[in-house]
């Protein structure tokens, strides 16, 4: 379970960034007073246009960066005071995730299994399951640099899931992938849900959200615009389709939501 309360994140702008953004302000607020929770066995979607604060929020949940103020709990563990403990429960996959091109898939998987402290017996069993599920046996000993995008994506999935995390974070996981490769991710998210894991993923593709999510939050310019179940979202739609409704919510002033 993920629980977020009153999350804020402010970045200090460098001179170069101030110049690029054409602003005199020394700080930029990426996330403002964000609160929501994600439940086990359900898929939570974080929606928002580019620059809305989705990646920053997910990075804070993954303990990669610390919030300026606010609280994050992962399975009841305070992620700010016990980040290493919280990380044991998290699997983190992004669309821009890279892999070590000079290593083989098996070397990468073993490395991450060691970093997550997965016991040898449990690791072997887990590897067996994942390799067979993702059909990875044929390229386990090839250098990653020589693999296709689809194969690399499978290695990334395997690396994310090797420690059997109960909370899985996906940051625009299908970004830049073809439909066949993206299908692996869709399957993975469904499988995580079936296993009772807590899943949060960010996206701006409504069809993907429609296909997968149980709960959703829409954020824009760092603030929460909508938070509820997908069923409620559909029931209360004021426009003809999901994409139009998403645009309406993002563009509407808070008083008109």
């Amino acid at each position: 379970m993920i629980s977020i309360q009153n999350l804020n994140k402010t970045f200090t702008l460098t001179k170069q960034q101030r110049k690029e953004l054409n602003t005199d302000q020394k700080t930029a607020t990426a996330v403002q007073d964000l609160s929501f929770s994600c439940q086990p066995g359900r898929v939570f979607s974080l929606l928002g246009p580019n620059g809305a604060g989705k990646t920053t929020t997910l990075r804070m949940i993954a303990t990669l960066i610390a919030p300026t103020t606010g609280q994050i709990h992962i399975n009841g563990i305070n992620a700010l005071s016990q980040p290493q403990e919280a990380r044991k429960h998290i699997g983190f996959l992004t669309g821009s995730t890279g892999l070590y091109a000079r290593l083989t898939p098996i070397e990468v998987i073993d490395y991450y299994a060691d970093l997550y402290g997965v016991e040898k017996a449990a690791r072997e069993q887990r590897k067996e399951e994942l390799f067979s599920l993702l059909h990875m046996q044929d390229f386990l000993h090839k250098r990653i640099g020589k693999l296709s995008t689809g194969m690399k994506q499978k290695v990334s999935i395997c690396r994310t899931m090797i420690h059997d995390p109960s909370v899985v974070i996906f940051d625009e996981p299908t970004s830049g992938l073809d439909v066949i490769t993206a299908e692996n991710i869709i399957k993975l998210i469904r499988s995580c849900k079936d296993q009772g894991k807590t899943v949060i993923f960010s996206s701006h593709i409504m069809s993907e959200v429609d296909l997968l999510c149980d709960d959703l939050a829409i954020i824009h310019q760092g603030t929460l615009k909508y938070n509820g179940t997908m069923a409620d979202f559909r029931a209360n739609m004021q426009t003809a389709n999901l994409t139009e409704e998403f645009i309406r919510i993002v563009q509407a002033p808070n008083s008109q939501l």
Partner: protein
Amino acid sequence: MIFRIFRKELLDTLRDRRTLMTMLVIPILAFPIIINVFVEISKSFEEGADTKMMKVGIVGDHNKNYIQQLEQIPAAVGPKKIVVFKDSLTLRKAIEADQIQLGLIIPANENNLRENQQTITINWLLDASEVGRSERAALYGSSLQANADAQRLQTLGLRPEQIKPLANNTINCASDKKMLGQLAGGILPYIFIAFGFIGCMYPAIDLFTGEKERGTLETLLTVPVARWKILIGKMLVVVSSGMLAASCSLIGLFISIEFLDLTDNQEILKVIHGILTPYFISSLLALLLPLVIFFAGVMIPIAIYAKSFKEAQSIITPLNIVMVLPAMVGFFPGIELNLNTAFIPVVNVVLATKELVAGTLSWLYFAGVFSVMCLLATLAIVLSYKQFGKESNILS
């Protein structure tokens, strides 16, 4: 966990051809190639100068006395052809046009000076920028000088020792090892430091900037391992690479001496072999280790800060000059390890290594230099840790 990270990063680094080149291949091959090329070029120049025909122009030798003396000089010192000129101006022009290589001007009053037992000054004209000309002129000159001295002494009825009441003789009390330390002691630390730096460079950029650029750092930092452990694991690879490059340069240097037969002097070979003792190697590595950690600690914050491999390279490459330039201090005579120089980073290691080669390094100075460098290495590690912890640096 640090060792696990080290193991993975080392494997990754060893599979990178570019790093392997700078860490192993270049340091090992650099010296055999550089020394071989240098020796071959020097040899060819020397041989060329010795065997080159030199035309000697002569002015004012009316009795052909000097021409005779020159012709009597054995051809073994180099072939020559004597050409008589009427005036010095034409001779000078011929030398400037390289038609004549050496010019000899005998004064017009040579007979008078000789009869009055005065000093006869003869002038040699040459283009000193050409290899071997000065040496050949000195050789011919000393031969004419010896003949003139013998003639004058005969005229005066004196023996040479009667006009040379005192002779100075210098006896070198320094051991061969100390002499080698002074001669080669300057270049050895320069080599180690230069390759120590270069050896650190690519792994530092690859393991920090490269990881950020490739998008693997973000994932790595979400694992339940303290960031300082990740930093130390990576840093160990950078330091190992620097130490390996420095050690390989030493191996390369010895290969060039052992297998390229650059010296036949058994005494020098004995001294060089004597340097390769466990004491020397362990002391040298002990001096180099904190220095290489210091290098790594300076490079890593830059590599963490840089957004791309290119940016990191463009900052670290000029740093090479700043860091390695002080190592050239070892080439200058008279600069010694003392209470002041012991506190100057890089310079202190150079001077201590120089004394180590010469066998004159005291334990007190060794401990002093080692402590100063350890302190700097610690500060560099702290700086790296602070940069590695910064959110703005770890996110691409």
